[in-house]
């Protein structure tokens, strides 16, 4: 990962070697950048705990269930990462997903539109909401907390209006229902897994060759191998479990393969990670989050970046609404309401995205979303009431925000 300015030899103690990698990682953690460590630790501990307390937790059926349960929240959290990276917040993302789901449902049922047109118009509504929020925040200068709090209330009303003050709209469109209810064929699942691992290996190899060709210290082959093997192991295990038969009566109705939500989230994860890490737009998002003044002086159009982040956030909320509608087979005025937004913000923060801006990754939303889904699911299986679940989720969020605040203090002494 690093080039040494004077000694350009690859083996000159850079982070490219195995020991350099672990050493660099430890140094980063000591420096206050915890990365994915807290979320992964929490995930492992929680899974072991629930497994011990309630063995049904570790069944293939529940694993698949967990992923579809968490899907909508994870996607909304991914959108929120853009806004959080700028040090802003979007409290209305939950009801944005609700309104977009309502538009989707109305288009599918009352207007009888085909699924692609309905999804298209729902996404367009998401973009429009984000554009409005962004322009109000940037042009008028009202803090995003207040603007999106107002939108939180207003959009709740809009959702009610669209659904004639509270009727539930059932969705019958097969394609939309398939997203959270159907599975990818087992073989295709393995193929996707192979594509992901090979793609990752190819990206790493290309980077290795690119760096070596320029005389920059590349990562050692051992590190590359370890990374690829790790991903292959993780994905392989997940796909294997999801490929097991989950139906109680396979002769009657077979149920296996990964839920369609999983590759959908994976594609979004890769896409947005690419945008954040490899394009100048992503670089500018981090810069604006780090120091707006520095970004402005560097000639970055700060306003455009901020508006775009709100647009992306709301558009992702629309995708989240689509998943939620698909999973519930219907849309009601409470879709995207209650704790959806708070859990999504919690997911991003638990994953390691800073509320102060400038630090965070797309992967954070997925990891944090998994933590929240595991708490929800595991405590539900253990028979705890909704009240207890809320309290525990709240405490976990507080813990994550505490880690964020403390690590920030550590990273920036003197603030």
């Amino acid at each position, binding site marked *: 990962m690093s080039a040494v300015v004077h000694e350009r030899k690859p083996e000159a103690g850079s982070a490219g070697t195995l020991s350099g990698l672990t050493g660099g990682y430890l140094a980063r953690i000591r420096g206050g950048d915890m990365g994915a460590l807290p979320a992964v630790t929490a995930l492992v501990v929680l899974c072991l705990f629930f497994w011990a307390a309630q063995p049904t937790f570790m069944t293939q059926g529940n694993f698949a269930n967990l992923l579809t349960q968490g899907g909508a929240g994870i996607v909304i959290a991914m959108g929120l990462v853009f806004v959080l990276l700028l040090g802003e917040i979007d409290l209305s993302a939950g009801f944005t997903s609700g309104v977009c789901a309502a538009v989707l449902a109305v288009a599918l049922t009352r207007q009888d539109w085909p699924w692609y047109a309905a999804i298209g118009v729902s996404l367009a509504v998401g973009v429009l909401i984000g554009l409005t929020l962004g322009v109000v925040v940037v042009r008028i200068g009202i803090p995003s907390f207040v603007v999106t709090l107002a939108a939180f209330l207003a959009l709740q009303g809009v959702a009610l209006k669209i659904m004639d003050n509270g009727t539930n709209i059932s969705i019958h469109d097969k394609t939309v229902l398939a997203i959270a209810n159907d599975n990818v064929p087992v073989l295709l699942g393995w193929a996707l897994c192979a594509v992901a691992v090979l793609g990752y290996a190819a990206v790493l190899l290309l980077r290795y060759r690119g760096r070596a060709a320029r*005389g920059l210290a590349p990562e050692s082959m051992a590190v590359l191998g370890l990374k690829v093997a790790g991903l292959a192991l993780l994905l392989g295990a997940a796909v294997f479990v999801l490929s097991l038969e989950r139906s109680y009566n396979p002769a009657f109705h077979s149920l296996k393969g990964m839920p369609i939500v999983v590759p959908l989230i994976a594609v979004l994860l890769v896409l947005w990670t690419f945008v954040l890490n490899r394009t100048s737009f992503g670089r*500018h998002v981090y810069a604006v989050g780090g120091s707006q003044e520095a970004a402005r002086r*560097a000639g970055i159009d700060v306003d455009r970046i901020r508006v775009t982040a709100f647009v992306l956030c709301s558009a992702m909320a629309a995708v989240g609404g689509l998943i939620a509608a698909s999973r519930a087979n219907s849309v009601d005025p409470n879709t995207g309401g209650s704790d959806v937004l708070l859990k999504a913000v919690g997911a991003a923060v638990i994953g390691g995205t800073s509320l102060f801006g*400038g630090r965070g990754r797309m992967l954070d939303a997925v990891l944090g979303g998994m933590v929240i889904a595991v708490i929800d699911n595991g405590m539900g299986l253990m028979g705890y009431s909704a009240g207890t679940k809320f309290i525990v989720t709240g405490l976990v969020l507080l813990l994550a925000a505490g880690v964020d605040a403390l690590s920030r203090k550590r990273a920036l002494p003197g603030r």
Partner: protein
Amino acid sequence: MTASAPPDPRTPVIELRGLDKSFGPVQVLHDVAFSAYPGEVTALVGDNGAGKSTLVKCVGGIHPIDAGEYLFEGAPVQVNSPRDAAALGVEIVYQDLALCDNLDIVQNMFLGREKRNGLVLDEYTMEELAAKTLAGLSVRTVKSVRQQVSSLSGGQRQTVAIAKAVLWNSKVVILDEPTAALGVAQTQQVLELVRRLADKGLAVVLISHNMNDVFAVSDRIAALYLGRTAAQVRTCDVTHAQVVELITSGRSGDLGLTGANGNGNGARA
């Protein structure tokens, strides 16, 4: 009226004439004239609040100017944004450095002007150029160009900020108090660097409070006094004491502002 340096046959790279700038009711710059020549270090001096930083921000396109002429290589130009200034080849290293703590050295050096391969950032080229530039400035204190700026010391940050300005083969580099936060050895390095930049043919503008620094490296001195140009002189034509007088009272002997009460600023106490 301002006293001017002897006429110079060359065209200045940057020349400002009759520059006015107000923030609301407060007029910060009055009829300011300023020029910087290629291959020379022009020191911009003045007391706190004299308008040095505002003048620099006008040159850099951060603040639009209210009135006056902005000439670049003899031709009038409009500079309305930092991008315009950068396009002309004017780079400014600000007092507060303007670096993003959460980005690494390479990312900061190319911020806003990233090298790209189509849609994708060209990290290799950027890292290579950044490392080369730092090596060219004989920077020994920075361990890795992929280090986050938050982990750097004040001197290292200054180095990165200067390297960022040098990277672009710019024609004018403006340094706002580059040595204010540095130790003795690092100050010496930065001053050597400043001289080297000028010797390479760049016009360097050095804002400084430190008369030793000013007399060590500058070829010309421009003094501001309460938002007006007190004098633009050759460094070899003046003494320490004269420059201090220009800074503190706006005039020194026959140099400086002429006004009813000698400070050119009316009745302001």
